[in-house]
């Protein structure tokens, strides 16, 4: 009896102490034994599914690796970023299981859990591949370095304050005090550092993540995941562990605060243009903007044509638009840790070498092919519209249209923001093969006003609703006008077709409701009302003959 009680107690204790970092991506049963045969099975899976990024030797140098930032992990050093172990320690096998299962969002490492992805790996296969990956680093053979045996684990706190205004406020105070903003920026947009002056253990410049975009958080976006990141530190990077500096409670508050910074994007595809009477907002921070409905536009790397780019910096632009009946004004807001206001054309990439059949690859390498540093290329953004009115759903191609389907771009360039029209320029494109063709000087009617603060650009662009130029988009009420975006982050090496791009969305100016609609409704009220009162008269007249007691 006593034995049974002990077992039960042990079970309960086990459950308490091994509480998973996240409810998801935990193995359903105990870890299988890593026999030689099991490892060999893992080798076959690794060969088929992992080696093209991580390399046959596990050194993170597979054929697809140079084009990615962050690079695929080099397993030979035994340095792993996302763990539940103390700073500098090896990960536990469960940590590796979690990473393989759910992937690292915002990187090339995707989820391999076959519950999430049909063609993923079964739980056993995931264990097999982990057993094989462990063979790359000799550290895993050293029992003295086993974080489970040495007890160098980091657990979630037993007391966890709920996610509410109070704990968020307390977390913000911790954020200030622990000086997280020195690197991550006051708003968590990764804009604290002054330059890319630090490198990780593999020699690549540190690009601090914008923690407000949940789909970019490699270690996971839940409060539990965030807590783990600053409790364990991120090995191989300057991100330290705060286990000693902050109490469990403080770290939990901090995790709540970071969680509260996350932006949940809107999902609608139509930008409704608000109507204002008397004066459109000129500046980006004009309170008049509050009245307009925002639309988030998701962007991604331009991978449609060479030079292809899979490391875009700008993945979200929030748009608003307003009209006073004469002019239309758009506001674009996006995060960018550095305001890049110079442009050196000489450093632009000549893409012809990677653009032809037989070229090694048509993607731009993450490191080395283009300078990704400050004071090289400018930040810029462009709103693209079809030049001709569209019929039905037919449109020009979202990447710069085509020969018979031209598009117009309103491009704003940070290096010319102090110049005429605030850096805005109208240009026409007929496909991606040709450079943008600026419109004639007397046809330039877009004026921009831009501001950069706390790692965020706000650009306002204004133009009359209607113009005389046949290359211009014309805004008329009641029509869905296709619109898409191009965006460039200069210090991320972006210029030309190395950029972020969105697919088509719509701009819509609501047409006033025609008078006839009200007329019909009033007529319906009158007719039904009249009929009702006529029936009442009939009913009253009928009553004497009725005997109802």
């Amino acid at each position: 009896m006593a034995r049974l009680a002990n077992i039960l107690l042990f079970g309960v204790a086990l459950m308490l102490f091994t509480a998973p970092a996240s409810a998801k991506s935990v193995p359903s049963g105990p870890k299988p034994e890593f026999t030689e045969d099991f490892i060999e099975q893992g080798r076959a899976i690794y060969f088929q599914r992992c080696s093209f990024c991580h390399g046959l030797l596990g050194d993170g140098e597979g054929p697809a690796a140079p084009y990615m930032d962050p690079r695929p992990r080099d397993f030979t050093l035994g340095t792993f970023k996302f763990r539940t172990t103390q700073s500098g320690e090896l990960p536990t096998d469960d940590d590796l299981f979690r990473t393989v299962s759910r992937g690292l969002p915002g990187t090339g490492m995707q989820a391999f859990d076959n519950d999430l992805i049909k063609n993923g790996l079964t739980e056993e296969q995931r264990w097999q591949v982990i057993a094989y990956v462990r063979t790359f680093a000799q550290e895993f053979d050293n029992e003295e370095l086993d974080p489970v045996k040495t007890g160098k684990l980091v657990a979630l706190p037993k007391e966890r304050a709920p996610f509410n205004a109070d704990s968020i406020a307390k977390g913000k105070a911790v954020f200030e005090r622990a000086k997280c903003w020195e690197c991550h920026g006051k708003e968590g947009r990764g804009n604290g550092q002054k330059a890319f002056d630090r490198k990780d253990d593999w020699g690549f410049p540190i690009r601090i993540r914008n923690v407000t975009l949940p789909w970019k958080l490699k270690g996971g976006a839940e409060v539990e995941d965030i807590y783990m990141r600053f409790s364990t530190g991120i090995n191989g990077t300057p991100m330290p562990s705060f286990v000693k500096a902050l109490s469990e409670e403080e770290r939990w508050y901090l995790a709540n605060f970071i969680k509260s910074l996350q932006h949940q994007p809107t999902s609608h595809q139509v930008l409704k243009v608000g109507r204002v009477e008397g004066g459109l907002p000129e500046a980006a921070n004009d309170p008049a903007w509050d009245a307009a409905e925002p639309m988030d536009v998701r962007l991604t790397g331009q991978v449609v044509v060479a030079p292809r780019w899979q490391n875009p910096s700008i993945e979200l632009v929030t748009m608003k638009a307003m009209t006073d009946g004469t002019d239309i004004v758009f506001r674009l807001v996006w995060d960018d840790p550095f305001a890049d206001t110079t442009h050196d054309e000489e450093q632009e990439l000549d893409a012809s070498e990677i653009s032809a059949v037989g070229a090694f690859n048509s993607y731009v390498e993450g490191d080395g092919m283009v300078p990704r540093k400050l004071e090289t290329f400018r930040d810029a953004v462009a709103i693209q519209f079809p030049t001709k009115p569209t019929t039905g759903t037919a449109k020009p191609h979202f990447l710069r249209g085509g020969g018979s389907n031209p598009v117009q771009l309103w491009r704003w360039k940070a290096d010319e923001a102090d110049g005429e029209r605030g850096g805005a320029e109208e240009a026409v494109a007929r496909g991606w093969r040709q450079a943008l063709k600026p419109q004639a000087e007397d046809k330039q009617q877009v004026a921009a006003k831009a501001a950069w603060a706390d790692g965020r650009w706000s650009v306002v662009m204004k133009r009359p609703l209607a113009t005389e130029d046949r290359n211009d988009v014309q805004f008329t009420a009641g029509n869905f006008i296709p619109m898409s975006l191009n965006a460039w982050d200069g210090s991320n090496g972006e210029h030309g077709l190395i950029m972020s791009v969105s697919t088509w969305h719509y701009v819509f100016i609501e047409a006033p409701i025609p008078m006839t609609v009200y007329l019909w409704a009033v007529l319906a009220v009158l007719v039904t009302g009249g009929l009702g009162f006529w029936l009442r008269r009939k009913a009253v007249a009928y009553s004497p003959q009725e005997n109802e007691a």
Partner: protein
Amino acid sequence: MRGFRISMFWWVVITLAIVYSVVKWAIPALSREITTLPFPLPVPGTLMLFYMVLTIVALFLMVTFSDEGLESFSRPIRRLLRGDFGQPTAYLVLLAVPFFVGWQVYEVVVPKVEVPVSLRIQHPSSNFPKKFEEMKNPFSNPTDEAITAFAEAAKEGEIAFIEQVVGDIERWEEESEPDHVLEFFPTPAMTALLGEIEGGEIEPATAKAALIEKNLFEGRALYAMNCRPCHGDSVAGDGPMADGFKLRPINFTDNGTIETIVEGYTFWRVANGGPGLPTEATPWDSAMPIWKLNLSDEERWKIIMAEYDLAQKTPRIPETH
């Protein structure tokens, strides 16, 4: 018995309410139970109209069948209008009903703002050139010459790999110092070949299987370099770039995609990309590149081979006439 009777008026009201609820809520709820899908089957608007008109006709027949029926139906209405339930109630109904009708009329006539819906055809064939229909992947069906040449090369240990994978293999060779370069393949087909090389006699079938394995390896590498950013490393259309595209990259693990088309079609699609689509397939939304501008025929065939293999699918067999 008399105590349980209700007037014809309430009969009509309750029947209409029941029929309406069945069509509006019960059918969709039942359809979810039957299909176990997370959403109900759509009930067309005309179906509701049809059922309600039928019900009203039937009720009208029933009410007007006899004078008693008509009387039983109209009495509550008369009493209400006359003010037997209080004058305020009568006026309230007399005002509320017209306003409700007016509101409904407004809803019907007010211009609706709806995003243009593009109905898209996924595998358009209107501009599919027939010459592609019976094309076969030369790398999953190697010729005898190719097999012999590969067997010879394997004997010599001088395998020509595509340049994209050479760097990784060379580093592996330096580190592992293998007896034969093909040892990095942990697959039965290659192990069998290496065994036969040692024995000195290579069976054509063994060489063929090994050559296919080698082509597949190169295809996977090219897939990881070129296609993975959008289509994902598990070919599920969920690569790191996928979320930025309104028209999501195709999920090859879906039963309705590469399995339902012939190999030649896949080849044609990969070559011509989004801009090569006919209008019914909304080419302007497709981010699929025109790969013939950047990849050779060989590279594209090898990628297609890897794609089918990773998705665990086989292409549709061309119809013979």
